[in-house]
């Protein structure tokens, strides 16, 4: 058996820092606090449209986080997470338009339903590995738009027409616009969910999940209940992506079957890989990439947008094959090595 690699992730670093008895607010904590502070004041300095775009970046980041929990941390491959995003969006849209449920209650509902569906899908997925699992999830992504358009379900889904969703109003005691309110609402949800993910990952459960990724047989031999953890991870991953979908429905104010096709799943996967597998901040970078790079490509050339997009993707993976997170890690390691000699661990 190979010796386990030293985990160089941020959580492990924080753990080591604490184990060494370092002061509790590590530089990483300061960085995080600074980022949250910037995120809190940003809407007052930006135009509404930019605020809206940043909201979408966070939403994609959250969806990618869901995929990351499954693929990056647990090693189960999914090419169909757009389906969970779509499911979450539809739950919110149907609850709001048909049953007049307040928007904030639709998030737990979307998350819960996606968790159950994801868990159930995780059961047959246990038998499949690698590319065969990819095909099963791929089937999910391809099938969802067809099912949503199916005339037997039109009473709920609105068929090809889709459903229009009302944008949530800001509470009357706050002097901010709707876009800003949605930004803060999304920011709060995203922070809570990221904190949750960080806690899962650094807990005993998280180590079990990663052990299954690194070596399923060895993990089972050490007494980890692999089927249970794998299906639960599938469920939690679907929950995260489903909540992102619910937020997405609120932001875009419209759901239609063709917005949740195969390409959404592929974009999420691209975001995950470019952000960095198994990295939490990388997810937000992935969200930035998913939202901005296609727009950038459009601006460079309308006719050749796809070509430009493809070339940018190629350049990014040529420069940083293990994603933004891996790249940052590499740069930090280089800088600290050249600055001072690190004591051998």
């Amino acid at each position, binding site marked *: 058996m190979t010796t386990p690699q030293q985990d160089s992730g941020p959580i492990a670093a924080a753990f080591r820092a604490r184990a060494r008895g370092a002061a509790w607010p590590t530089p990483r904590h300061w960085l995080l606090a600074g980022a949250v502070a910037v995120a809190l004041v940003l809407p007052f300095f930006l135009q509404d449209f930019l605020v809206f775009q940043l909201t979408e970046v966070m939403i994609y980041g959250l969806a990618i986080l869901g995929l990351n929990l499954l693929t990056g941390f647990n090693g189960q491959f999914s090419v169909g997470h757009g389906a969970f995003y779509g499911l979450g969006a539809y739950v919110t849209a149907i609850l709001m338009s048909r049953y007049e449920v307040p928007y904030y209650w639709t998030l737990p509902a979307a998350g819960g339903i996606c968790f159950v569906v994801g868990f159930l899908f995780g059961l047959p997925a246990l038998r499949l590995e690698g590319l065969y699992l990819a095909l099963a999830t791929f*089937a999910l992504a391809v*099938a969802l738009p067809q*099912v949503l358009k*199916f005339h037997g379900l039109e009473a709920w889904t609105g068929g090809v027409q889709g459903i229009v969703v009302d944008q949530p109003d800001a509470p009357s005691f706050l002097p901010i616009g709707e876009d800003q309110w949605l930004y803060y609402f999304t920011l709060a949800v995203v922070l809570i969910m990221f904190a949750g993910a960080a806690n899962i990952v650094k807990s005993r459960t998280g180590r079990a999940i990663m052990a299954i990724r690194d070596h399923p047989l*060895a993990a089972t031999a050490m007494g980890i209940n692999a089927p249970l953890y794998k299906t639960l991870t599938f469920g939690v991953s679907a929950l995260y992506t489903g909540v992102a979908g619910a937020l997405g429905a609120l932001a875009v104010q419209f759901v239609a079957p063709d917005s949740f096709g195969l390409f959404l799943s592929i974009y999420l996967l691209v975001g995950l890989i470019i952000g960095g597998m198994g990295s939490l901040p990388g997810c937000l970078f992935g969200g930035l990439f998913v939202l901005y790079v296609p727009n950038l490509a459009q601006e460079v050339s309308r*006719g050749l947008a796809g070509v430009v997009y493809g070339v940018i*993707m*190629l350049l990014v993976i040529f420069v940083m*094959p*293990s994603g933004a997170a891996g790249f940052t890690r590499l740069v930090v390691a280089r800088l600290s090595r050249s600055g001072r000699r690190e004591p051998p661990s």
Partner: protein
Amino acid sequence: MQLLIQEVLAGLANGAIYALTALAIVMVFQAIDHLNFAQGEMATFSTFVAWQLIEWGVTYWAAFVLTVALSFAGGIAIERVLFRPLHKAPILALLVGFIALFSILNSGDGYIWNYTIKTFPTPFGTAPLFGSALLDGHQAGMIGVTAVLLGLLYFFFRGTRLGLAMRAAAANPESARLVGIRVGWMTALGWGMAAAIGAVGGMLIAPIVFLDPNMMLGVLIYGFSGAVLGGLTSPGGAVFGGFAVGVIESLAGTFIPYVGRDLNLTIALLVIVAVLMVRPTGIFGRTVASRV
């Protein structure tokens, strides 16, 4: 009964295309252990090249041969330029490479040849075969060409030194290199052959679905399904899988009441996932044992 036979034959005719796509996917998979997401777009690009050649006045069969040759060269070029440098990158970075290639080719098609739908000629004619309504000339031609191609490939892999070398390079790159096989070039050759097979598939299906940049999108989905259903490690299995998917799709659309027409794709995929539950590595796939 008449309807059943007709639907099975129609399914087989479409299945021939899925089988070709599946085969091309398996070719690249054998060479580099990864699914080529851009396979369909490569085929579409080749078909556009053939269309352009015919527009310039080249006869059909000359254009056919020329396109296959150009696609072969193009496939090798893609491997050398794009994927050779990514040789050691993590497997998922490769995936982004495929998606990038997909995007570039798809958008490039549209830019060069625009998005209007074009008709593509068939050399087989569309008259009903043997005076019945069961199969028309083009469908029969599709099945025939696929069969000939499969026969040639079978001969190539089983009966020639080069075919043996390619199989060795795929099965065990290290040992193959030790006995003097140039594994890198075998990979490139696999890409070239995949592109050429894709080109044949594209030219055969274009008369039916018409030519536009998104022509192969649906086909690719079925091709993948066929490849995985048959087993990614088995070229023969991929071909069987492709035909099976065509027949399942055709029968589901006709014989399952109420949901069949709207959800034929969904049902086809459900069947495939159900088969995978029983045979997790595809019907003809090898189970890979791992050492602890």
